[in-house]
Structure formats: structure tokens, C-alpha cells
């Protein structure tokens, strides 16, 4: 409840200050961007966030919004993790207990896919999950902004997963085993005859993975945040004569919480599976 009132207050403030203009970027973007379209945010409504409230919408600092909030998330998790790790005890306090619960839940989830390989890949995949989850949820925090509404951020995450999967493949299968895997793991004559067909197919499939990861996360979170923003604007324009609005967006907060979690989960799950596919095949058939 506090959440949406803060949003409303933010928007109400934004309505009165000329420099804190609420961007309806369709009109706004065209006014000062001219014909050159930024690319990432083609259209849609954006809520005011911390950077645009402090510096104003025309400031250069707006280019750094996504990076800023991504860093906020990263620093938050670093502080949480180091605090718990420095003061870890045999009998955990409430905070340590909570963190252990998160890590253990993540471990069990990944264990169901990777099996005994889990420990090696848990740090990367678990971090990925919580990082993406926090970034997605940041769009619903007052004066916050989801960095995952930027294709740059999601693309960098998915390229990282792609490179890590390839590295895992070369490391675990060996250079020849890696090529053998790309040739469709041929075992008999028919398999070797299919190699010219399978090789480009596998390479295209491998290259398509980071694209689909990045676009899925970007599209889902952008859609969800735009939905919330549009309903806030609607709620405000209903009572345009007064400084308050109708909280029409509240049901979509719950939808947003659910969808953000599912998208973070799907990203992690697919990364896990891409890594699993690169592991030696005999080991994971359990």
C-alpha cells in the first residue's frame, strides 16, 4: 500500500514541478530527440525515477539510469553477502538464517537439474537469479527503475551466460569433444554423413540462445513496467482536477511480482540447461 501511495505522491509532485516532468515518452521523446530514435525504448510510458527527479528529464544523467540502478542492486547484494559471511556463526541469527534459506533453496533447485555438478555452478547461477530478480522488482519500488527494461543490460547478461557455457564446453569436453558436440555427437556412419547438415544447425541454435534470453527478459519486464505506468497515468487522469489519483495499478503490482519472479527463474533455468548441455553426456543421465 505504501508503495503505490509513494508512487502517486511522486507523480503528484511530478505534475507540479516543470523540471520534474512526467515523461510520456511518445510525445516527450519526439520533442527533443528529433528524428533520431534512441532504439531501446521505442515507445511507452515511463515513471519518474530517482535520477530523473533529481537531475531533470533533459539531463545527460538519464543515460546512466540503468547502470546506476544495476550498480545499486549489485552493491546491495555484495554488502548483504559480506556482512553475513564475516559474522557467520554456528547458531545463525535471523539474517544469516534468511540468507542460508535463500542459498539452500537455490541449491536444491539447481541440484534437481545439474545433480552432483551443482556446487561448481551454483555461485554463478544463484547470483544470476537474485540479481535479475532484484533488478526486475526495482521497477516497482518508488523512484526506482528496472535496469532490465534496457536491452543493453539483458544482452550483457545473456552474452555472459553464452560465453560461460562455451567456456564450460571447451573446458569439460576438450577442444575436440567440443567440436564433436557441435557436430551432433556422431557415433555411426549415418551420424558422420549428417555432420555437414548438423554443424551449421548447431551453430545457429547456439547463437540464437543469447538472443532469445535477452529479448525474453527485456520484453517481459518492459511490458510489465509499461502496464503499471499506463495504469498509474490512467488513475491520475481520472481525477485530473485533484492532486490525488485512483490506485488502479494495485492488481498489476501483484501480477508484476509474480511475472518478475517467473522471468528471473526462467532465465536461470535456461542458463542452467545451456550449461548442462555442455557437460559430458554420460555424467548427467541419472
Amino acid at each position, binding site marked *: 500500500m505504501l508503495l503505490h501511495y509513494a508512487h502517486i505522491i511522486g507523480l503528484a509532485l511530478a505534475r507540479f514541478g516543470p523540471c520534474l516532468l512526467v515523461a510520456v515518452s511518445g510525445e516527450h521523446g519526439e520533442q527533443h530527440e528529433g528524428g533520431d530514435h534512441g532504439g531501446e525504448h521505442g515507445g511507452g510510458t515511463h515513471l519518474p525515477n530517482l535520477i530523473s527527479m533529481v537531475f531533470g528529464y533533459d539531463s545527460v544523467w538519464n543515460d546512466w539510469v540503468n547502470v546506476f540502478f544495476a550498480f545499486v542492486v549489485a552493491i546491495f547484494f555484495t554488502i548483504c553477502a559480506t556482512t553475513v559471511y564475516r559474522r557467520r556463526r554456528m547458531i545463525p541469527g535471523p539474517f544469516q538464517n534468511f540468507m542460508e534459506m535463500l542459498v539452500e533453496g537455490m541449491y536444491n533447485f539447481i541440484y534437481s537439474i545439474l545433480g552432483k555438478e551443482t556446487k561448481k555452478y551454483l555461485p554463478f547461477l544463484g547470483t544470476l537469479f537474485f540479481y535479475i530478480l532484484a533488478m526486475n522488482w526495482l521497477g516497482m519500488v518508488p523512484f526506482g527503475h528496472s535496469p532490465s527494461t534496457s536491452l543493453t543490460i539483458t544482452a550483457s547478461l545473456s552474452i555472459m551466460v553464452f560465453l560461460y557455457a562455451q567456456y564450460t564446453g571447451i573446458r569439460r569436453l576438450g577442444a575436440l569433444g567440443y567440436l564433436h558436440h557441435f557436430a551432433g555427437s556422431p557415433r555411426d556412419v549415418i551420424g558422420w554423413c549428417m555432420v555437414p547438415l548438423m554443424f551449421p544447425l548447431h551453430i545457429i541454435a547456439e547463437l540464437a540462445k543469447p538472443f532469445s534470453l535477452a529479448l*525474453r527478459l527485456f520484453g517481459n519486464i518492459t511490458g510489465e513496467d509499461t502496464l503499471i505506468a499506463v495504469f498509474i497515468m490512467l488513475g491520475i487522469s481520472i481525477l485530473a482536477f485533484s492532486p490525488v489519483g485512483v490506485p488502479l495499478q494495485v492488481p498489476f503490482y501483484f501480477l508484476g511480482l509474480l511475472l518478475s519472479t517467473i522471468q528471473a527463474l526462467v532465465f536461470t533455468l535456461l542458463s542452467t*540447461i545451456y550449461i548442462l548441455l555442455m557437460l559430458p553426456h554420460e555424467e548427467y543421465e541419472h
Partner: protein
Amino acid sequence: MDYQSALGLAAPLAVGIAAIGSGLGIGRAVGSAMEAIGRQPEAAGKIQTAMIIGAAFIEALTIYVFIVFILASGKIG
């Protein structure tokens, strides 16, 4: 009809058509998963994981259309 009105008509329509397809697909996937869980409740975890992966692949198609819509909506003006 100039290209802007053509885009203005076609872009939302494309999202709608894509949503019909994914709706049918996800409906089938989730329906079958529920059936499977009803038949074998002890395998619920594995079925759910597989279902979420499948649903993600299905709805990714709508998301691609949505991204095309975002790109096109900049040109409608």
C-alpha cells in the same frame, strides 16, 4: 493509406494475433501438465520445471512480436 496508418492498424493487430497463438499453446501445455500432476502427484516438481521452460519458449514468441511492436510504434508518430 499512408504507411503510418497502416502501421498503426497492423502493429497492435500483430500483437493480438500472436497472443491468440501463445494463449492456445500455453493453455494446452499447462492443461497437460495439470493432468500429469493429477495422475502422478509425486512428480509434480519435475513436471512443473518442464512446464515453465515450455511456457517460456511459447510466450517468447509473443514477446518477439511485442518487441517488433515497440520498434514499429516509434515510427507511427
